[in-house]
C-alpha cells in the first residue's frame, strides 16, 4: 500500500523509492529531512509504548484475540468490501453507456453515503435486537429511521439526477 511505488515517472526507468534513498531525494529540504527523522523516531516510540501498555494491561491470553480482530478487519476490508466496491463501480461504469457522467457520479455518491450509514446502523440494529437491559440505551425506532433515511436519500438522488439530466439535455440542444 505504499504510495511511494506509484509516484509519477516519465520514462520506463523505475523511480527511486524515497524510503530507500532519503538523502538523494530532491523533494526534501534539510528542514524536512530533520522533520522526517523526528517523525519516524516519535512514531517508533509511540508504537513501542503502545505495545508495552498493551502487554502491561491486557492479560496475555487476550492478546491473540486482538491480533485476530486486526487480521480479520484487514481481510474483511481488502477481500470483501473493496472487491464489492470495485464491482459496483464497474456496473455503474457500464451503465454510463446510457446516462451522463454527472448523473453517474451523483448515483455513485449516494450509494456510498448510504452504504457508510448502513455500516454504522446495522450493528446498532443488532445491538438493539439483543437488548441492553437499559431502556435509555438505544431508545429510538432505528429501523424506521433507517427506512426513512434511505427513502430521503433516494428522493434527493432522483431529484438531483433529474435536474442534471434536464440541464444536460438543454445544453445539447
Amino acid at each position: 500500500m505504499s504510495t511511494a511505488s506509484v509516484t509519477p515517472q516519465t520514462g520506463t526507468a523505475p523511480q527511486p523509492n524515497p524510503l530507500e534513498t532519503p538523502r538523494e531525494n530532491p523533494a526534501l529540504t534539510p528542514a524536512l529531512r530533520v522533520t522526517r527523522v523526528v517523525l519516524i523516531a516519535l512514531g517508533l516510540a509511540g508504537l513501542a509504548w503502545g505495545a508495552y501498555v498493551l502487554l502491561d494491561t491486557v492479560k496475555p491470553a487476550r492478546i491473540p484475540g486482538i491480533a485476530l480482530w486486526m487480521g480479520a478487519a484487514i481481510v474483511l476490508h481488502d477481500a470483501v468490501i473493496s472487491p464489492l466496491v470495485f464491482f459496483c463501480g464497474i456496473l455503474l461504469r457500464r451503465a454510463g453507456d446510457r446516462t451522463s457522467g454527472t448523473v453517474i457520479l451523483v448515483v455513485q455518491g449516494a450509494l456510498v453515503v448510504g452504504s457508510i450509514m448502513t455500516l454504522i446502523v446495522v450493528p446498532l440494529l443488532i445491538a438493539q435486537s439483543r437488548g441492553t437491559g437499559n431502556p435509555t440505551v438505544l431508545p429510538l425506532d432505528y429501523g424506521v429511521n433507517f427506512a426513512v433515511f434511505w427513502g430521503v436519500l433516494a428522493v434527493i438522488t432522483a431529484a438531483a439526477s433529474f435536474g442534471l439530466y434536464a440541464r444536460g439535455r438543454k445544453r445539447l440542444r
Partner: protein
Amino acid sequence: MVQLIMRQVMYEAQRALASPVRNPRMATVIGRLLGLAFVLCFGTGLYSHFLQEPLPGMHFATRPELLYQFTQGTHIVAGIACFPLLLAKLYIVFPDLFQQPPVKSFLNFLERASIALFVGASLVQITIGLLNTYQWYPWPFPFRETHFALGWVLIGSLALHIGIKLPIIARVWRKNADDGSGDDDHLTDAVAHDRAATPEAVRLFGSSRPTGVTGRLLAWIDATPALRVERSRSSASGPDAPDSGAAPQTAAGTGSGPASGPTADPAAPARNSAAARNRLSRRGFLTTVGVSVGTVVVLTAGQTVAPLDSLNAFAPRKKGVGQQGVPVNRTSKQADVAADALAAGWVLTVAHAGVERSFSRAELLALPQTEVELPIACVEGWSQLARWRGVRLRDLADLVSADAEASFRLTSLEKKGGYRQTTMGSEYVRDPLTLVALELNGETLDLEHGYPARMIAPGRPGVLQTKWLSRIEAMDV
C-alpha cells in the same frame, strides 16, 4: 515464468483499479483530514483517560462546566467521522496493495508491515469504539485497556507513516504552491501504463494485456464509454486546464480498447476532456466524502449537540429520554444496589482522620442546599444538561475539618465494578458547583440516578459522578 505471470496479474489488478481519484494528491488531502480526526480522538481520549486515572500531581480544569461534554463529544463525533474518512483513504491507496514486486527491500517490507498494522489497528479501534457506545461488546478482549493501547499504536503509526511519506506529501504541497491549481494529474495508472509495455510482458502475452477471463473482463470494462462531461466546453479553457501533456487516463479510457464517446476526437480536445473528466471524478469523490462525513455526524451528534437533537436518528442515546429526562448509564439492577439504596437505615458517612460523621437523607436535606445546572457527560459521548440540588461537598468536607488540599475517596453502594470506589481531586472537592445531589430537575433523585445521594461535579466523566453514595473520605495530603 511464474514470477512473470504473478507480476502481470498484480499489474493488471493495479490497472483495473486505477482511477482518477487514486493519486498521491488525493491520498494526501484525505490523509490530512483523517490524521486530524485521529489526533482529535487521541487528544480527547487521553484527556478522558487521565481524568479517570490521573498521574501523581495531575490537576484538571473545572471550568468551563461543559468541558468534558465538549471533549468527549468531540471524541465520538471525530470518531464517527473516521468511518468515511478511513474508508476513503483506503479506497485511494488500495491499488498499492498489489505493488510489484510485493517486497522491494527490507525497509520496504518494514514499511508495508507498519501500514498493515496501522490499517488493522485503525479499523479495530473505530469498530470497538462505535460498538462500545451501543453497549455491545462482542470481542474477546477488554475494551478500555485495548482501546487505550491501540490509541498509542495508532498515533505512533500515524507519525511514522507521515515521516515515511513526507517526500510525497512535500511534493504535493510544492505542486500546489507552484501552479496554484492544486490538480495533480499524475495518476497511479500512468505508472502502471508505462510498466505495461515491458518487453517481457509483450513477448509473453503477445500484447500488454492478458488473455482469458481477466483479459475479457478488462476489455469489457474498457469498452465502456468514458464519463461524458457536460461541462467540457467551459472547463477546457478554464483556469485549471491541464498544464502538461501527461494527460491522465481513467481505466475506462486507457489501453487498446476503443476510446469512444463524444470526446474521442483529435488529440488536444481529447486531452482536455480527459482532464476535465478526471477533475469531475475527483470533485465527485471529494463531495461524496464530504457529504458522507456530514451525514454520519449530523444524524448522530444530536446525543450531545443540543441544536442537532431533532436530527438525531442513529445515536445510541436521545436527549431527554430517561428517568426525570436524563439518560442512565448503569441501572440500579445492573449495579445490584436497589435493596441497599432503598433501605430505611441508609446513611452517608463522611470521614477524615478517624473522625466519622453520618448523615441520613433527612439530615442532608436539613443542611444548606445549593442548586446548580450541570451536564451529565458520559464517556460514551452523550450528555444531558440538568438541574441538581443538594449539599456542597466542600461544606461536608469542612464539617470533618478536611484539609483544603485533600483528595476524597468516594464509595458507592455498588458491590462490584471498576467505579465502585473512585478518587476526586481537591480541585473538584473545593469547587462551589460540586454537590452531593439529592434532587434532580425539581424532584427527589430517582433510584436510577443514584438515590439516596450522588455526586455531581463540573467537567468530570459520568462514570466518576458516583451514584448511590455510601461513604466519602478525605485522603492524606
